[in-house]
């Protein structure tokens, strides 16, 4: 069976590092792919552009999507994903440091499966990320 992967869409290198470290703690680090902006995310998921010839499983088990991304914003990416039949059911967790009401609302509206705020407190951050990883890769049954 193909190993489940996580796609991390994160433009902030520090956050990226911390997220990976957290996932490493629960031994999920090897199954994480990282893209750094919205366009890359789309390309990866739809196997277009940059990632046209991507190998690996068709789709990740979950996408950890930030909202504030260069090129194409997270919400826009989500929109596109949900518009495409290939990625309509793809579980997407919005992982963002924004606690704007608007973003959460728009996130769900655009079809996010979950909305999680990145806590400033790193220990909480690690906890959150671990939980996310465990849940989406172990507990949840993908579509």
């Amino acid at each position, binding site marked *: 069976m193909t190993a489940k992967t996580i796609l991390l869409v994160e433009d*902030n290198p*520090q*956050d990226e*590092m*911390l997220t990976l*470290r957290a996932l490493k703690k629960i031994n999920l680090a090897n199954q994480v792919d990282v893209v750094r902006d919205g366009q890359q995310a789309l390309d990866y998921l739809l196997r277009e552009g940059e990632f046209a010839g991507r190998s690996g499983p068709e789709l990740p088990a979950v996408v950890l999507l930030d909202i*504030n991304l260069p090129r194409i914003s997270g919400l826009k990416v989500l929109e596109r994903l949900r518009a495409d039949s290939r990625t309509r059911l793809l579980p997407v967790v919005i992982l*963002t*440091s*924004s*606690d*704007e009401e608007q973003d959460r609302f728009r996130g769900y509206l655009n079809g996010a499966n979950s909305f999680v705020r*990145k*806590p*400033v*407190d*790193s*220990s909480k*951050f*690690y906890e959150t990320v671990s939980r996310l990883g465990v849940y989406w890769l172990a507990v949840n049954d993908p579509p």
Partner: protein
Amino acid sequence: MNSSADGEAKSQTHTCLGCFVTYAAAIASAAAAFIIYQALSHLVGPGLPPYILFYPAVMLVALLAGMGPGLLATAVAEFTVIYWILPMEGHLAPARVVEILGTVVFLGMGVFISVVAELYRRARERAATYKQEISLHESETRFSSVFHTDPIGMNITRFADGQYLDVNESFLSLFGYMREEILHHTATELETWAAPEERNRFIRTLRDQGSVRSVETRHRRKSGEILIALVSAELIEVSGERCILTLLQDITERKRAEAMLRESEEHFRDTLDNMMEGCQILGFDWRYLYINKAAEKHNRRSNEELLTKKYLDMWPGIETTEVFKVIQRCMEERVTQRIENEFVFPDGTVGWFELSIQPVPQGVFILSQDITERKRSEKALSDSQRLLKVILDLVPQFIFAKDRNSRHVLVNLACAEANGMKPDQMVGLRDLDFVRDQAQAKSFMSDDLEIIESGKPKIRFEERLTDATGRTRILQTTKIPFTLPGTAQTALLGVSVDITELKLAEAEVQKLNAELERRVHERTVQLEAANKELEAFAYAVSHDLRAPLRALDGFSQALSEDYGPKLSGEAHNFLDQIVLASRHMGELIDGLLTLSRSTRGELQLEEVDLSAHAEAILAEHAKAEPFRRVTWTVEPGLGARCDSRLIEVVLTNLLDNAWKYTAGTPEPTIRFYAEHRGNEHIYCVADNGAGFDMRHADKLFQPFQRLHRQEEFPGIGIGLATVQRIVHRHGGIIRATGTPGKGATFSFSLS
């Protein structure tokens, strides 16, 4: 009637006495003649014829007394001559032939004279009797003709039984009877007397006085009609019977006329008495002859006080007044006078009377009318007219009235001045005559015409007038049709308000408004832009500032975890400090964000269950710190209309504080309740924790101000500022009271 019998006796006695007197007189006259003769003869001497005096004496006696006394006088004279006169001459008897002749002649003459005298007397008597008889007959005839032709009714009735013996034509026609119907009937039978007592009285008077003169009596005609007559009657004798001759003058008509006159006089008198105007009559002697009720009122004196008194006596001091002079003029010159008189009464009060003084036969007639009220109203009217004029001229608006032909009949000062004239100059002129701009004048006049003809007013319309100085004014005019006082003519009343200034002001205001709108619009745009900036900023803050914090925190942690054993205690300490600092910064950012958010955005008002929120918050705290035993009471059912999210912030802040500051209290209690003051709700969060010094209370709600040291109670000091801002946005106020060591209470209202 007894008089004739008595008369007879009397005449008999008279006759006897008469005879005696006449014969005595005869003797006396002879004696007198003798004495005179004696006297004469003494004077003249002898030679006087003896019978010279006796002739006249005898003639006299015979003529006067008749034959008898004449003969006696002759005899006595003869005797006297023979026995007295002749002897004196010397001899006793008539001796001489002359003497004897004289004697015989005298005797003869004496007898002759007596007889002739007697014959003469008898003849005269007969003539007299004849004349008497003729005249009696004549008078009887005359009487009869009078009786029968006299317009006055006459009747002769027998005294004894009242039977009608004769009646004249007038009587018959008065009573309406025929002769046969009356004659030989009695008055009582025929009931010709209307009242028997009158007849009885009439008879009694006749009996007592022999006649009745002009007595008013009532009779009954044959027809039953009552006749009023003036009756005179006389007792007469007819054919030896005692009768009554009655004369009746029909005064029925006269009586009726009199009664009517009296009635009408009474009526007039009544009218006069009751007239509204005062009527007084002063006699030529200036005495009050008549005063009617109204005059009594005008004079404020009663009839009894004034009647018969003199005018000047009743009103001392009046002779100096005009009114007296006027009455006097009428009294003397007999010319009607009129005067309006202001009369001061003795008690000092004043009345106005209009007097009309006319000459009348008795003196003067004064008609008085109390015009006090009229005068008072006239004065009041003229006062109010004056006031009106003053007001009209005081008023800055133009007030004017024009007649049908658009000629001004009334103009106030303001209107006239605007047209460069005085009010009286403008009266009579039309707008065409003085308004500079002919087009304007034509427009005014055509408006006037339309309003007068249609009868519809034109209210608050604008028009232009170029005034006397050449300035164009904008007027707001109202013109209404109305009737000129004192005529039935329709005219026009107008009021114009000079709104030139107003218009300018309006234009100005509009300009300013437009300017204001523009500025507001500008500002709004600016504000919106600013808001947007702020939002972007807040967003940036929330997002971009947190990320580095996370990194700070995360890598410090990572360091500590992954390289922990290789680090010294101090190194760990340093790392802890880094973490603490970054966490602190995170809280600050959160606080700032919350603060900024609390002032942005519109309040979304809804009914919020405050009690539920409070319970939830406290429950969270309890769950987070299960080791702390805090007693809390939340008044149930507290709700308010507010923004749910923002109130959440408020309650969270206040309850968090309460929780925090009771950390060191042995038996901590937190209460959330509401107080009612009037129709305001005051929500309170009270604790028995550390409290605070009221002296520094003003710092409480300022951002970043703390009243406790960080080690005592951690915190960033921004919460209360936010709470205050939220409460203020809801239009409420927040207050804090506290006592160090005892506790604090925060109370807020939401509207």
